[in-house]
């Protein structure tokens, strides 16, 4: 419905059809809002399911390549450096 405080501008309409209401709120039906909620839930479920799967795969594969391979010409610059330890001890770094 038009708001009672709205000015009457009916004389301004040079139209061949009836103008819409001056009210500024879209008249959405509940089923329209429900449909949009269902579609967005479905799409984001689809997207997040794949996103979580890709993150899981990354975590399971672990770091690789340059992230774990020391440079070939690397040498320790201080006596207690861990840089040249064998790869099998990498998992203990975080606890040291």
């Amino acid at each position, binding site marked *: 419905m038009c708001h009672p405080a709205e000015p009457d501008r009916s004389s301004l309409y040079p139209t061949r059809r*009836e103008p819409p*209401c*001056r009210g500024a709120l879209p*008249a959405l039906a509940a089923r329209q809002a429900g*449909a949009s909620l269902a*579609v967005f839930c479905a*799409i984001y479920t689809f997207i997040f399911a794949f996103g979580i799967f890709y993150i899981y795969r990354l975590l399971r594969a672990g770091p690789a390549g340059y992230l774990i391979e020391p440079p070939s010409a690397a040498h320790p610059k201080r006596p207690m450096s861990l840089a040249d330890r064998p790869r099998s001890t990498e998992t203990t770094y975080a606890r040291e």
Partner: protein
Amino acid sequence: MIMFWATLLAVSILLYVLLDGFDLGVGILSGMTRSETKRSAMLAAVEPIWDGNETWLVVTAVILWGAFPVAYAGLLPAFYLPLLVMLAGLILRGVAFEYRSKTEQMRWIWDLSFAGGSFAATFIQGLTVGALVEGLPWAKGQYAGGDFGWFTPYAALCGIGLCLGYALLGASWLVKKCEGDVREMAYRLIPYLSAGLLLFLIGIFIYSLAEQLEVMDMWVERPYLYVFPMIGAMAAILLAFSVRYRWDEVPFLVVTVIFLCAFGTMVLSFWPYMIPFVLTVEEAAAPQSSLAFMFWGEGLFVFPLMLFYTAISYSIFRGKVRSAAGYYGNRKAAVTKLPYRPAGDSRH
């Protein structure tokens, strides 16, 4: 102030159509090739700028909502379901950019999402314009067409026409940005897409005459509107020459001129109406105080900032795309080149 906001709305829509138009077009074209190399190169041509292009849709919606709330309130119930499909398409194609480089076995899902989302979004945009041109059913001041009152053969034809138009814009962008096979493929497609678009325009003109649409009266009242099709025809001739002689920079500019002509024709055909033959721009506008309030935020700050951002991003990513690795692929490569640093190592 009403004219200021009407101008900003027109500029926003135009920028959206031109900028997102070509990357939606590239999306549609990406579904027409089976070559992974070509598809990667096509995506690389739009990857750095596609999301910036789509912000113009947000700006358009905000201006419509804030400055022309009566039009917003009238249009949203009418196009709620098609807009929902359009947004779903835009979401899926956006995610496809991120996800397709994360997998090889399931890449087809994201390629399908990218091409399908681009097609759906484009088709809905064309369909919306077609439904507005044909006229929506109104009763007691509100949309009265039901959930599918917007779906007519004329509107569907406009949807297909815009798909052809965006694909043409996308092909001309690929000519501008790509090299090798993709550039040649785009050059080969441009004549077919142009011919398809011409057939569509002829078809839509005959349909409009047959249906005696009200917009045809405007063309009788305003003969200066014929200037736009004439400019468009000259641009089409220049397009044919640019394809013939392989002028890489020209097709995109020429197709942009064709779109400008089409947009100018539409705006001037319907002026002063915002919803054709139902609601004028003045009637749709918010109160003067609201328009003035919006001016100090959106008008004076956000809109110029958006223009500046767009100009900067296109300036940075100018020139040909040399690698098929793309923006998202390069980012992944950059991560793998991080120097080795065991946990607890504080060396610099």
